[in-house]
């Protein structure tokens, strides 16, 4: 009788994780390269996988139009927070794993030729949690949108506020909401895109406040975690609770948009979400012609004459060094003079990177195939 030995060979369904991904929705094994090509949407059942910030920018913006700003922002450890390991160690590990400095990237780019101020979150960096850096980047994106009268787009993917920064993370809710109120008062539109997941303090601040709120199908969007909810109320949660469609049904999301259609939908909306002219106050925003000769000329001028943009007397703007933008390795189609940077007198210590090798944008699934 043969003796059955325990097998040390990997089971048939164990695939190298960087080659294959199992769809959690339909259990289909998906070849990563194909998945990436399909914007990380399962070709079988349409499940939307999470997208890194860089991949999101690539899928939304015009090719090579993105110019990153404030790439050097990095969180400190104001509380000296230690749980299983110290917060700085967690930060460093997340930076190594993702190649990002924090859970958001912000900058300006164009979508079908329209300039936008955009901030994109990355769930891969500590659950996309919002600390001082994320709050600051969203706020600066809003302030730049206000100063240059550009539409603001924020793509959220976050578990909420970052516990390791305590109430200072909570204060980012106030910081971002206040900036968005100013945007609203100045009649500059704001488009919020919620991807899986958008929960906690991020949902309860800038994500929910969009003039137009878009969400990806089946994205988890909610205020309190499901465990808290279940624990507090001791009752069965309704099916589809806190999903994008649930929010849509209850009137907090304008449109649930498939990722394939997202860029197109955003471009469509941007025709209407154009900042109202400052001079012609009475004109409704959507009466603007799709082709805006003045805006076109000024954006053209910005490209041709890099210093024009920086010469604009943006209120209390301080010039940033053009060399401070090495994280944007794109060819110099956009201006390199970083006059667009909105100055703030927030507390910041300008520290030169002491040569610690934080890797740049990685192409994360570089090992595919």
């Amino acid at each position, binding site marked *: 009788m043969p003796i059955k030995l325990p097998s040390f060979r990997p089971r048939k369904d164990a695939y190298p994780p960087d080659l294959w991904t199992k769809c959690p929705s339909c259990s289909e094994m998906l070849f990563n390269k194909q998945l990436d090509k399909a914007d990380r949407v399962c070709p079988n059942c349409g499940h939307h996988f999470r997208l890194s910030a860089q991949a999101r920018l690539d899928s939304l913006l015009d090719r090579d139009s993105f110019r990153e700003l404030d790439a050097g922002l990095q969180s400190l450890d104001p509380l000296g927070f230690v749980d299983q390991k110290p917060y700085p160690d967690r930060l460093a590990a997340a930076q190594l794993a993702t190649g990002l400095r924090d859970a958001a990237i912000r900058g300006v780019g164009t979508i079908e030729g329209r300039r936008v101020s955009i901030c994109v979150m990355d769930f891969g960096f500590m659950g996309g949690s919002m600390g001082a850096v994320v709050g600051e980047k969203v706020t600066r994106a809003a302030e730049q949108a206000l100063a240059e009268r550009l539409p603001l787009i924020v793509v959220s993917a976050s578990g909420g506020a970052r516990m390791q920064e305590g109430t200072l993370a909570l204060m980012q809710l106030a910081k971002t909401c206040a900036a968005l109120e100013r945007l609203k008062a100045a009649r500059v539109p704001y488009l919020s895109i919620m991807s899986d997941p958008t929960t906690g303090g991020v949902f309860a601040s800038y994500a929910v406040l969009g003039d137009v709120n878009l969400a990806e199908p089946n994205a988890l969007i909610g205020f309190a975690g499901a465990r808290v909810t279940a624990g507090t109320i001791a009752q069965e949660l309704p099916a589809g609770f806190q999903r994008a469609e649930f929010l849509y049904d209850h009137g907090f999301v304008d449109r649930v948009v498939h990722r394939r259609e997202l860029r197109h939908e955003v471009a469509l909306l941007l025709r209407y979400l154009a900042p109202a002219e400052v001079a012609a106050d009475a004109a409704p925003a959507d009466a603007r012609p799709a082709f805006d000769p003045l805006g076109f000329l000024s954006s053209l001028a910005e490209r041709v004459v890099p210093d024009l943009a920086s010469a604009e007397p943006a209120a209390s703007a301080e010039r940033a060094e053009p060399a401070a933008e090495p994280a944007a390795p794109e060819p110099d189609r956009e201006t390199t003079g970083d006059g667009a940077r909105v100055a703030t007198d927030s507390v910041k210590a*300008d520290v030169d990177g002491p040569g610690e090798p934080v890797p740049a944008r990685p192409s994360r699934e570089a090992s595919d195939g």
Partner: protein
Amino acid sequence: MVDRLLGRNREAPPDAPLDARTAVWNRVQLARNLRRPRTLELLGEMADEIVELHGDRGFGDDAAIVAGFARLDGHRIAFVGQQKGADTEENIRRNFGMPHPEGYRKAMRVMDLAERLGLPIVSFVDVPGAHPGPESEERGIADAIARSIGLMSRLRTPIVAVITGEGGSGGALAIAVGDVVIALENAVYSVISPEGCASILWRTADEAATAALAMRMTADDQLALGVVDIVVPEPGEGAHADPAETARRLRPIIVGELERLGRVPADELVEARYRRYRVLGAYTEVAAPAVAPTPTRGLGDRLRDLLDPTRWSGGNPIPGTSRRDEPPAREEV
């Protein structure tokens, strides 16, 4: 036997970190004390008269939030605040001080009215967190909180926020955006409940005291962080021991701030409030972000991966490989 056990407990060498933990945890318990004076009790001691207003004009009236007008040392003010119950029956009626969206919308309505009437606003914060139930989500608790925060950031009237007990995350901040933020000595303020923090980061709610210490949630710590501007000492064992004395200590400070802020022009007031929150948060700006070239993975790397059993799936997620289908890190609010 019991004596021996107690005796041994007494003799146990006082462990320094444990002591700090116990001290913080005692503060949390004091902040949650059932007999701690709430908005209406404090105002009852402080104010010459109170008129409570009800209803959000859209859905209903939330008893977990009270709002209205009051007269404080001759100053007409508008007040908003959370109201927990003093006993089980009242707590059920007031939902243990956990507001639903309509509560925040009522607060917004009264604050908006206060701005139009030129009344300063005093808010009293004492909340474990906004109510986390399905009905709360259906009616848009996140939306109510975000809009309330936004509204308070731009109102052209003085706002004094007082953290009187538990400052529980977004549900607290929704009515705590002010020109000046006062906290009672034993009040706590945190981004997440210590139990929630412990269950996420320590994987057990038993470490709540450790989490409370790590989050530096006491009033004094919040003062040091700049989140709170003034800490008011409580009498004796705490505010619950002598509510009248607590109110007597709180009143001159609130009134003093109202008088000071009342002299500031509205534009400056709103700008200063914007700045107050604009600068909160600790970050550095690295002048030149290090940009390392993306490591290209060659055949050798891939072969090594194949030979490395830790890279096969089925086990724990491997740090460094970015699998994006892991369960989300959730924040309890």
